[in-house]
């Protein structure tokens, strides 16, 4: 019996968290919100595992010699880091967590179109993760997350088939999520929620879902062919009997390039929500931002050859892919310009989600611009397969996507849990993440440009200073991730109650209780105003 005076607000309203108790009510749930939480837990576990491999890589690279582990083991480190981070963290991340939770709410629906398929998607993800973990425990894979043939199909002595199975299975999870979102957004919008009033987070998830549905099956069949080749000792991609390794790369990158847009588009969707809320202003150029999401999804399928400039692909194809890679930067740039214009003459507050949004805008810009360097044929010949590329994609993936995910988690945490996180610690962690991130990856641009190759456990001594800085940065970055984990857990029990709309944000998800009831809304909302109907003039914003 507690002797502390109970605030009447601690009396819990019926919500999706207290609707039912017990492990069965979670593992067999059909509620999109509970499934989102199952995903949050799962991808956090995978993120930690992928992070451990990153840590091992950075420790080895403290010294120029390959002295911590031998090269075969090092190959396994970066392979597992890549496979886990790409397929088991980044691809599902925002869609399966924040998307699952908020897409139905943002359109005023009671759930996704196919709740049981949503649950099936999580089950399939877990099975895929189990295969990946099995591959790790049995001894790992050393082919790189890109599974290039004929090494992966013929010569590698590691557990390629197991790992490929894990990725194949996780791909189905991704497809089912995308399928669900597409049908939901088309068919289950509340009255008055026209396409032109959809939050840009929904547009972004829609575009992401299109990519998931159209691209993932191709990597599925490609990895299936590699697995079959290994299992039956045939030679589909083996040059010795006439197979073509370049064909593997074409088919692999047909998915894996659009995959990077699966990874970034939802983060861009989060950005639109954050920037508008914390500038108290509608997103500038709404229709351009919405169209740019679709544009990225479509053009993203026309550029994959830029991963293959030095492989022996024809020069004319390289020209084609280089040109289109320049083109795909345009819709991304439109978004950055529009978010900046949104902030102009807005009433900006510096809550943690907005700090992550600022970080995204700067770091994604750097990452995106360095992508243009890589799209330039002559430059790419010099920097391909160096740390320049590594730095580029970490700037967009971590500096972009992970920051957006952190910003979104902080923004929607009060809605998901009903609790507020501690703002002081949150701001401090955001700062650690920003500093740690830049310290980790900026030196890699320089080292790569100067010639340090990627995927090597040893390097020439002149690169050591950059690697030491990078490893130091990684330590800071790790702390920046650990602290939020702690205070988020803490807030579940001890955080102050958040109320329905602590940020005074627009959007249907904020019109219901925190946490929301199981069916999201007491009555189906009817939408009468445009998205982001913040007052245009400055208003007093109580921090």
């Amino acid at each position, binding site marked *: 019996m507690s002797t502390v005076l109970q605030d009447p607000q601690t009396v819990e309203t019926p919500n999706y968290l207290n609707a039912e108790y017990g492990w069965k009510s979670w593992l067999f749930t059909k509620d999109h919100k509970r499934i989102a939480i199952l995903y949050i837990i799962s991808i956090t576990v995978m993120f930690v595992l992928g992070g451990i491999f990153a840590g091992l890589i950075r420790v080895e690279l403290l010294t120029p010699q390959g002295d911590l582990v031998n090269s075969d083991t090092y190959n396994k480190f970066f392979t597992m880091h890549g496979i886990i981070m790409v397929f088991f963290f980044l691809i599902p991340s925002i869609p399966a967590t924040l998307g699952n939770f908020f897409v139905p709410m943002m359109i005023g629906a009671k759930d996704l179109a196919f709740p049981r398929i949503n649950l099936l998607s999580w089950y399939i993800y877990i099975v895929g993760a189990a295969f990946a973990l099995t591959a790790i425990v049995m001894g790992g894979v050393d082919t790189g997350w890109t599974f290039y043939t004929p090494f992966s199909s013929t010569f590698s002595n590691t557990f390629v088939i197991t790992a490929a199975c894990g990725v194949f299975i996780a791909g189905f999870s991704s497809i089912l999520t995308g399928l669900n979102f597409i049908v939901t957004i088309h068919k289950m919008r509340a009255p008055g929620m026209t396409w032109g009033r959809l939050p840009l987070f929904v547009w972004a998830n829609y575009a992401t879902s299109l990519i998931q549905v*159209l691209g993932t099956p*191709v990597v599925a069949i490609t990895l299936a062919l590699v697995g079959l080749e290994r299992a039956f000792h045939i030679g589909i991609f083996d040059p010795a009997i006439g197979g073509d390794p370049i064909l593997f790369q074409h088919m692999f990158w047909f998915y894996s390039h659009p995959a990077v847009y699966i990874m970034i588009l939802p983060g861009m969707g989060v950005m639109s929500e954050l920037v508008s809320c914390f500038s108290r202003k509608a997103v500038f150029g709404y229709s351009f931002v919405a169209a740019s999401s679709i544009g990225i999804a479509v053009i993203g*399928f026309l550029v*994959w050859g830029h991963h293959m400039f030095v492989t022996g692909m*024809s*020069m*004319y194809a390289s020209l*084609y892919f280089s040109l289109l890679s320049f083109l795909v930067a345009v819709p991304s740039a439109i978004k950055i310009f529009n978010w900046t214009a949104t902030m102009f003459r807005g009433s900006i507050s510096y809550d943690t989600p907005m700090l992550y949004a600022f970080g995204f805008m700067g770091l994604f810009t750097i990452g995106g611009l360095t992508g243009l360097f890589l799209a330039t044929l002559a430059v790419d010949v010099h920097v391909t397969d160096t740390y320049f590329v590594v730095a580029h994609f970490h700037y967009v993936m971590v500096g972009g996507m992970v920051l957006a995910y952190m910003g979104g988690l902080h923004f929607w945490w009060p809605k998901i849990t009903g609790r507020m996180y501690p703002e002081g610690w949150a701001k401090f962690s955001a700062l650690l993440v920003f500093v740690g991130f830049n310290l980790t990856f900026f030196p890699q641009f320089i080292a790569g440009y100067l010639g340090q190759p990627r995927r090597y456990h040893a390097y020439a001594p002149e690169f050591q200073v950059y690697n030491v800085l990078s490893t130091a940065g990684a330590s800071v970055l790790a702390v920046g991730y650990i602290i939020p984990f702690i205070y988020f857990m803490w807030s579940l029990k001890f955080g102050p109650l958040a109320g329905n709309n602590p940020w005074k944000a627009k959007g249907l998800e904020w019109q219901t209780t925190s946490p929301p009831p199981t069916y999201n809304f007491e009555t189906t909302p009817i939408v009468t105003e445009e998205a982001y109907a913040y007052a245009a003039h400055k208003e007093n914003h109580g921090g």
Partner: protein
Amino acid sequence: MHSIPSVRTYVLVWLTLTIMTFVTFYVSTINLGEWNIVVALLIAFFKMMLVILIFMNVKAESPLTKLFVGAGFFWMVLLLGQVAIDYISRTWMPEGKMW
């Protein structure tokens, strides 16, 4: 919920498809060189359209469904076409061979 074709329509389509199968078979026995594959694929395409429009009733479906069906085939063309760009253009280079 949508208008559904009559039994007569279905049977007519079935007959057409079966006849086209015979035609494909017969044409393949005539040596047209490179055009054999073109003719065969054209006939297959025609058969596919019949199945999609009538058997799968896409003719009566909403524009949205038609858009999705079209997008699916367009995307496959994107895959085959862009991969082909590489292999075909290799021969445009001075020492280039397709393989």
